């Protein structure tokens, strides 16, 4: 709990500030529709963030996430509509390709000892390039079809006794992913081993931890979740340009993971923190849209500044907690 306290407080403050400012401007924020929208947008980045958290915990990084979203998202739309594959085959293919890419990254990083930054940077360039190739740079989309499948992203679940607000399905899917990921990290042997190897790989290896296999596994988890996020993304927006789909997603996801307490040095991080970190970033973007509609260009500045504040606040909270603990015992 202590580890996510800083980010949680920051999130609540920004949330209250947004509500107050929106009320002053006469803009709509606390309405069911806006809240639904917010939750819906947290889902894909949240899933990416959870995936990249695994990689960051091993001390690595994945820069290819945005291009993965493009490859899988645009690829799925293209296969379904332009090529005409059935849904089951398309989705299996998406899963297979995502997992294979993770395996590819992980193998190069562990067996050939290549730096994760470089391997995934090449991925960032290649996967977008491939997508632009097979689509011949043409937009891919669903038109009015596949409404059933698109429920995964567009669907809503009524909440009992609450009017005017329904729970978006993608947010629920993200929560399921988050819970599974948290259990995996905190309760399973593999999760513990991952934390250990992120901090001291040599000590872990000598303790019989399969460091190579686990590191590869982290990259596979990351890529598969990126593929899933890409699927949800395309199902939500309906059509995408191969040249721009998923641009900057990797940076938002990494920012969310860092806000959520993952150290890029490896060995630390919580899933709850990543989810709150994502929510904070999407909240900020929403805030700019509804409160400062004429200052859209400030978006990156705002997010960058908040990331910095968040990391500083986190460090200060950590120190305060340590001090209080010392005082209590001393």
């Amino acid at each position, binding site marked *: 709990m202590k580890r996510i306290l800083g980010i949680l407080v920051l999130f609540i403050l920004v949330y209250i500030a947004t509500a107050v400012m929106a009320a002053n401007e006469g803009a709509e924020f606390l309405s069911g529709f806006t809240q639904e929208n917010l939750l819906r947008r947290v889902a894909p980045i949240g899933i990416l963030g959870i995936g990249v958290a695994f990689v960051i915990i091993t001390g690595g990084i994945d820069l290819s996430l945005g291009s993965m979203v493009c490859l899988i998202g645009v690829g799925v739309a293209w296969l379904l509509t332009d090529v005409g594959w059935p849904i089951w085959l398309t989705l299996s293919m998406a899963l297979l390709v995502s997992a294979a890419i993770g395996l590819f990254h992980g193998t190069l990083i562990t067996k050939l000892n290549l730096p994760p930054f470089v391997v995934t940077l090449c991925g960032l360039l290649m996967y977008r390039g491939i997508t632009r190739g097979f689509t011949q740079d043409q937009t891919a989309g669903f038109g009015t079809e596949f409404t059933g499948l698109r429920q995964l992203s567009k669907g809503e679940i009524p909440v009992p006794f609450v009017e005017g607000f329904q729970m978006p399905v993608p947010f629920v899917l993200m929560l399921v992913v988050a819970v599974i990921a948290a259990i995996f990290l905190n309760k399973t042997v593999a999760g513990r*081993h991952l*934390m*250990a190897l992120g901090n*001291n790989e040599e*000590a872990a290896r000598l303790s*019989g*931890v*399969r460091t190579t296999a686990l590191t590869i596994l982290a990259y596979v988890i990351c890529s598969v979740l990126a593929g899933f996020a890409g699927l949800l993304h395309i199902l939500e927006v309906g059509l995408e340009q191969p040249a721009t789909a998923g641009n900057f997603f990797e940076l938002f996801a990494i920012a969310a993971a860092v806000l959520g307490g993952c150290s890029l040095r490896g060995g*630390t991080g919580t899933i709850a923190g990543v989810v709150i970190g994502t929510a904070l970033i999407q909240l900020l973007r929403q805030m700019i849209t509804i409160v400062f509609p004429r200052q859209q260009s400030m978006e990156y500045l705002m997010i960058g500044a908040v990331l910095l504040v968040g990391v500083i606040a986190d460090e200060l909270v950590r120190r305060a907690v340590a001090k209080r603990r010392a005082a209590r015992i001393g």
Partner: protein
Amino acid sequence: MSGNESPLLEVRGIGKQFPGVRALHDVGFHLNGGEVLALLGENGAGKSTLMKILAGVQPPDSGEILLEGEAVRIDSVQDAMERGIALIHQELNLATNLSIGANIFLGREPRKFGLIDEATINAEARRFLDLVGLKIDPREVVGNLTIGRQQMVEIAKALSIDARILIMDEPTSSLSSKETESLFAVIKDLRKRGVSIIYISHRLGEVKELADRVTVLRDGENAGDLERHEIEHDRMVSLMVGRDLSQFYPHEPHAAGDMALEVRDLRSPAHPKHAVSFQLRAGEIVGLAGLVGAGRTELIETIFGVTHSAGGEVRVAGQKVDIRSPRDAIQAGLALAPEDRKQQGLVLEMAVRENLSLASLSRDQRHGFLNLKKESEISEEMIGKMRVKTPTDRQVVRYLSGGNQQKVVLGKWLAMKPRVLLLDEPTRGIDVGAKQEIYALMEELARDGVAILFVSSEMEEVLGMSDRTLVMHEGRLTGELQRSELSEEAVMRLATGGAKAAAA
């Protein structure tokens, strides 16, 4: 101290509190010019903490420090250096990716036209390396050196500061006997030139040889002082432990059981030309002696699958096993407690209990989930048995004293209850009381049928604890001594490459 003159350094009433640990309470001592003061105490007694305070690494909560009778505040390492105080830390603090010269002058690089003056660095570094008897090129990268040599680089670095007060926190724990000798020569020479030295060690023989006076800490408080003529093994021990230790080596030879480990023509990648063969029976404690660099660590790391063997085979309990990784070795029933605890043994950011259970997690798992109940049991048992000094088993290992970290590493492997236990320098940096506990544990495990092979550079330990001793020299197994043939001379002769004398 002569007349009313104040000592060079005096500390009074020093107190220091960490979360859950009172590291120091009302501690005082003094140090005269040109003397060697040994600071003794069990693991966690507060020795390193006190020295870090003097060197400006951490501030005290209370108390005062007087230099030549004048109260001073030491706020930073820089500050301490300017007052002529240098500390050689218990753990190595070198940038392994930089050269020796760069490390020696790190933070104090001489410059020329605004750029680092490499020529001066290398010339000066060579001078200090000569002083500690290290004949290597200062341009060599530190990461390529053995641990012992890295330690000598640390010492050279401290000398380069030109300190009046030089503090050495367990400097010999990773040195070979030759390196130790040259360090002693350096210390004696410094003393002659009027430098004062505070010397921390768990090796009481060294203290006897070097120290002019001894100050002992126990549980963060002063336990007593000894003058030169009072420095004797038993008096030091009883001040440290607060009781007498009888029968230091509990070893009783016992009947060896079935074949536990058989190594045939094994070649380590470090010494691929020499094939090594030996056998280990259940319930046997076998010492692996030799000089530092003889290839002992390489040999057991090859057995354990840390490095790939360059040929040969390993049999465990009569079965040939193909060990390609530590994981394979663990599954075959082997365990290795490595030499370099910080690098290889501990996940520093994790809690004591998590470190203790790390190697047995897979064994105790329930369908992939952590068995937290078992984990508490293990940690409670091992903390008790090893007498690990920690406020709770949830303390982060980074905050334990050096010796207590070592106990956690050992505890992790002992908790595995392996068939064959490989120990690399098991008591390095461990206090006398805990050493005896570790010997007792080895004894207990052997009685339970575990075969133990331990590497040790401490002759006393080899003589005291082994049923049989294997001796290595430059990657070769030069001989095997039964307990009846065991003597310091016999071991040294083999360790330096001589032949075994005709059996008596």
